[in-house]
């Protein structure tokens, strides 16, 4: 009888406990890819070797690092975002965000979560407590902050919302629909996108961060969608429509371009490498000096990358 109780207890504990994943040691540098088609996260070392793979049970569509040891994962169709401690692989908290999460952005341990169904942006602390909510335009998605304001791209709308860090409405700037991909360069906000209607977008918009005024455009066809700064301070942008990577100077001149991967959506700087995720060919590309130095097969549909460098 006692044994049965223990068994029952174990079952209850087992059933109630949150899923746990293989731990990622705190001192490990990695680039992680969220593979949305296959439903997994691959952790990859600087040597382009897979350290760990997490098989996800929920249809997560995005992730971001809250702290070096805390990972937030969320999904458009998933009601709860999960906070997972990397060093233990355990989920330590979940945030009830409701369905419709499109993007999460972290600035100094403040978590901003955009919701494309309620058309809001909410602010959470690292414990998962909601502190503030603000309504936005249609389908808020990409977000970035310069420390004083947070800029929210309304994906299905024709304006960008400017909010304070406490989510108070500041301004609205006109932008094309289907804009995506934000980058801060000095006092400019660089904005990519897919393009409105059937015509694909070919440029990165340079917007004055104080006034919202369009300063200029950088040709980066087709569909520039993500940007990252390289160790040499150059900006690398990826255009998924033509699978092109552009190396752009800080003043906005295209220095180099190359065709890499198939339908890549994300580029990140990792050590001396620029790492690119090919969504259609399920590969990560390690690029140095306009050359692919390594390719690595990951789970199906690598959509997003995060980088942790602790050393």
């Amino acid at each position: 009888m006692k044994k049965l109780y223990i068994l029952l207890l174990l079952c209850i504990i087992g059933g109630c406990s949150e899923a746990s994943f293989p731990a990622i040691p705190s001192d490990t540098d990695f680039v992680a890819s969220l593979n949305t088609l296959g439903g997994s996260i691959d952790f990859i070392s600087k040597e382009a070797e897979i350290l760990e793979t997490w098989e996800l049970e929920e249809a997560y569509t995005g992730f971001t690092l809250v702290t070096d040891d805390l990972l937030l994962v969320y999904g458009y169709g998933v009601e709860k975002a999960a906070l997972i401690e990397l060093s233990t692989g355990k989920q330590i908290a979940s945030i009830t965000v409701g369905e419709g999460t499109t993007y999460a952005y972290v600035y100094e341990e403040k978590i901003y979560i955009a919701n494309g169904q309620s058309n809001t942006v909410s602010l959470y602390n690292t414990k998962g407590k909601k502190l503030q909510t603000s309504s936005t335009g249609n389908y808020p998605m990409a977000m970035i902050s310069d420390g004083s304001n947070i800029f929210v791209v309304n994906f299905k709308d024709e304006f960008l919302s400017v909010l304070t860090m406490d989510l108070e409405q500041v301004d609205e700037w006109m932008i094309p629909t289907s804009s995506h991909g934000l980058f801060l360069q000095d006092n400019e906000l660089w904005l990519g996108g897919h393009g409105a209607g059937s015509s694909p977008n070919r440029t990165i918009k340079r917007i004055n961060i104080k006034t919202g005024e369009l300063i200029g455009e950088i040709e980066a066809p087709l569909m520039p969608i993500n940007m990252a700064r390289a160790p040499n301070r150059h900006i690398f942008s990826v255009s998924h429509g033509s699978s092109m990577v552009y190396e752009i100077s800080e003043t906005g001149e295209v220095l180099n371009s190359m065709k890499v991967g198939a339908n890549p959506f994300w580029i990140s700087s990792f050590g001396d490498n620029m790492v690119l995720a090919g969504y259609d060919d399920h590969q990560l590309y390690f690029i140095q000096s306009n050359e692919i130095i390594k390719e690595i097969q990951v789970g199906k549909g690598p959509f997003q990358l995060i980088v942790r460098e602790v050393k």
Partner: protein
Amino acid sequence: MKKLSVKIWMLLLLFIAITIVFLVIFTNFLYEELYVEDKETSMVEIAENLQKTYKGGAVTNEFIKQTEDFNRFSDVEVFTVRNPRELSACLPFDVDYETLIGHEERAQLIEGEAVIKRGYEKRFNREVVSVIYPLVDENRLEGIIYVYVPLTKMTEMASKDVIFLLITVSFLLLIMAWASLKTLQKVLVPLDKLKLAANEMTAGKYETRVDIKSSDEIGELAKTFNLMATSIQEEDEKKRDFLSIVSHELRTPISYIKGYGEAFEQELVPEEKNKEIYTLIVQEANRMQKLTNDLLTLARSEQHQEMDITPLVLSEVVREVLQLVKTLADKKQISFTVTIDEETILRADEQMTKQILINILENAIHYSPVSSTIEIGNEMTMSETTIFIKDQGCGIAQEHLAHITERFYRVNKARSRIDGGTGLGLSIASQLIEMQKGKLVFTSQVEKGTTVYITLPTWGDSFL
């Protein structure tokens, strides 16, 4: 009530119509399938040929122009798409845009596989058959070759033929209806004839015959009908003959009696002749009585009166019968030689058997000369015995032998009245023998005599 022919015709028409309609639908379906399939094949060919000209890298304007040029010479729509938006490249993003291909198709195309589909396409706002071939460089889907044909166009084209088909089918249906009607009529007209003939027969026209030559079931029926008609006609004639004979046979004694009666009435008969005439009147009355008795017996036997089958000692029966006919025989000094087996036991009705023997013996006595001998004997077989009665009379000619059991049949018609018989004796005997499952056979030689063989069943071992 509808006629059988109409019912059968309607049924036939229904079957034919159902078959034709089914065939038309099936043919149409098959035709469309084949047509669409054929189109698909040619579309695949076009797409394949165009795909071969793709040399990798980004899809050039020249390539797009080339496919557009192709359009001019082809009856299918061909175009090349390189816009990643159309190719569902932005898929992970919830872009408000109806793409040309879905994500599953995109995945298939990236693998280098062609997509062939049928159905409604929102882009073209109609039902289409489309063949999509990928332009893949390494793992990149640089573009697609999209070939399509509106399904409506195809069905429209097919429908031209459908009209032709419908006309043909209607025509066919009419011909079939006409042909089946004619066939049915041909089959059923004899039935009508038969019905008419039967009606005629009912009305008493027994000479009616149907004229049907076919050798099928109806032909057989017609033949049987004709045979039946012949039988009925013969029976009818026999009946008439019988009646006329009976009336004739009765009329003669009646006219005698009437004549003598009138003579007495008018006192034309001399006193001394009275006795002779009374005798004649009694004699004629007796004849009438005998005739009516015989007719009654005959009628009863024809009505299959009940028999009382018992074991009969044959010798006993013969003795009793001989006793009865003795007076008659004695008049002509006829003697009997009896060789009846004493142990023969018949399985028969006593009265009937006696009647048979009396009738035959009376006949034998009638036709035997004075002072002759009649032999009576029997022979046993397994389960029956044959009694023979042999006289030394005038005999019967061969041509008459077959008819002597017919009613009122007389070998010598002139002698009939003098003979004093009714002409029914042998007929009655024959009928009674038949009723007892026996046989009656005659053999005869003219001027030498006649032998009558009466075969009757005997009582088997079970009785002993």
